[in-house]
């Protein structure tokens, strides 16, 4: 009887196990295998042997190093900035009454807009063409500064556009989460603090912030993971040849190794994606450890 019911349990689990097995576990194992297969030939589907050469190659590939650098810059700049600005905007939204809903809608718009469409808008803002300087450059000119080519120009300008764009794209979701977190803090806490003569600053640091800290950490962790996986946004602005633009990311590098102009190297792609996995995993664990220490209830 007991055996039968446990069989039944497995039967219920079967669809999920099959699905996850085929589409998650098997490919994962395959990726690990690929990453250790040396001299893999895509045409003949054969390889010489197993070893660490793929990792060595990837780690010495200047394109990969550039991609790692770009990715880290994007992560380090956009995650704290977007979370911080989102928090400020949410606090503002939470404290106004008239037009609150209108503002909420406006701030949420980028979330429902297609990445490539947004990219197009950014092109118009920043790109210099034969016909126009781009809106931002016009603005700079009117302030007496010289034009900067944000799309094909110096590295810092491109990184600036990239970060600006990323922050702009990820912000709506963060604002949404934070406004609801702020609205969820019971009014009684604020009333209690008010009766006790707590200053606004202290209310924010001692009550509001700890109360919404679980949500902030959630946003930081998912923000880190999301930023490490950045790719589509870069394509939207700089086009598909990211290596040439010097704006490639780790995921972009993986894609290029598989399907790009230099494609056909699943071993290198696998090695690169495993390296990315290791980085994301480490950062997430560190994040969780910190949050466990600071999110106290």
């Amino acid at each position, binding site marked *: 009887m007991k055996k039968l019911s446990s069989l039944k349990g497995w039967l219920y689990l079967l669809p999920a196990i099959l699905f996850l097995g085929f589409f998650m576990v098997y490919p994962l194992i395959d990726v690990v295998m690929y990453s250790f297969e040396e001299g893999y030939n895509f045409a003949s589907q054969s390889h010489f042997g197993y070893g660490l050469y793929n990792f060595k190659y990837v780690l010495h590939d200047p394109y990969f190093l550039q991609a790692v650098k770009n990715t880290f810059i994007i992560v380090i700049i956009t995650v704290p900035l977007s979370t911080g600005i989102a928090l400020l905007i949410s606090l503002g939204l939470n404290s106004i009454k008239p037009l609150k809903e209108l503002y909420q809608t406006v701030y949420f718009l980028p979330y429902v807009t297609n990445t490539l469409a947004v990219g197009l808008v950014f092109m118009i803002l920043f790109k210099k063409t034969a016909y126009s300087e781009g809106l931002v450059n016009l603005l700079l000119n009117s302030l007496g500064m010289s034009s900067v080519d944000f799309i094909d120009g110096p590295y810092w300008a491109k990184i600036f556009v990239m970060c600006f764009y990323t922050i702009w794209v990820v912000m709506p979701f963060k604002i949404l989460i934070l406004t609801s977190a702020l609205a969820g803090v019971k009014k009684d*806490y604020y*009333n209690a603090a008010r009766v006790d*003569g*707590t200053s606004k600053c*202290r209310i924010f640091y001692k009550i509001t912030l700890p109360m919404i800290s679980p949500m902030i950490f959630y946003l930081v962790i998912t923000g880190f993971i999301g930023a490490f996986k950045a790719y589509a946004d870069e394509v939207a602005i700089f086009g598909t040849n990211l290596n040439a633009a010097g704006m490639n990311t780790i995921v972009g590098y993986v894609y290029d190794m598989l399907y790009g102009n230099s494609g056909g190297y699943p071993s290198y792609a696998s090695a690169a994606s495993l390296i990315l996995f290791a980085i994301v995993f480490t950062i997430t664990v560190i994040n969780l450890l910190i949050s466990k220490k600071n999110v106290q*209830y």
Partner: protein
Amino acid sequence: MKVILKNLTKKFPNRNKKIKEDVVAVDNFDFEIPDGKLIGLLGPSGCGKSTTLNMISGLEKPTSGRIFFGDDDVTDLPAEHRGVGLVFQNYALYPHLTVRQNIIFPLQNLKGDKKMTMDAMNAKADEVAKLVQIGEYMDRRPSELSGGQQQRVAIARALVKTPRVLLLDEPLSNLDARLRLQTREEIKRIQRETGVTTIFVTHDQEEAMSISDMIVVMKDGRLMQMDKPQTVYDDPKNFFVAKFLGTPAINTFDGEVKSEKLYLGDSAVLNVPGVKDGPVYVGIRPEGFIPDENGPMECDLSAVEVMGRDTSIVSTHPAMTVVAIRSIILSENRPDATGNKVRFSLKPYKVLLFDKTTEERIYFDIK
């Protein structure tokens, strides 16, 4: 500290924007709370009790009228300068702080020459913690305490700044029945020991009756009666107060006075000297009935419920305006209720008459 409310009124704009008229939450409230007393603000939900409390605390601004603490007019003072301690229904303890941190939170807000050292704050916290008997839980978080303990922490936090007035908003409603009994004694004791003028809001009459020095009964934002608990029960000024206080509730009837006799239905049940002829509301407390074979009031017997010390006789009468008449008598006086009729005579001072239009009490001479 004496608390005086003068013509206090609070209006809120109507939620339904089509109705221009404001909602009056508190209407021309006028009373004086003597120094060092425990006052129960009692009324059905939505009668403006909490609004009144919030105005005293300063969380809400009155539309008109003044509030005095002693001789100070505090009406325009913001909450933090009034020196009130406020305890919320759900305690509002900061979940991420320990009990000690919660208690010293108000002290850390002090600025200027009132600023205290950490040692002084801790000493003060220990002192109030001892008063409310939570000394052993100082390093726990609120979530690790029972409801009653949390309530005491909330009281400690309200007391730590030695407030001029302590305000409690439905302090017991989140506790289970047994803890409620315990905690209300506790509140009484703490109030006695500190001597701080305390106002607490409740919709539970038993709570208000048992621990208050004075009860303020409210209805629809208006003051109905303010007096000692026993007086409010024995001598209600109007029909509402009579109906609101007492468990089991008072039995109500439509009666009529003819030539100084009170008629319920067709039978005269009581002499009411000095009352003019006309229809009246009649309230008879459950303990006002005396089983009496020759009594003037005949009722149809529905049930006899034995509860040990007391027996409650449930019956019906044509003139009643309640679902059933409930009379409470000592069990040893229980009549041999075999038939389906039961007769009572009435204790005159347990029979209350009220005007049909104003609902005000009509007094008669009790011989």
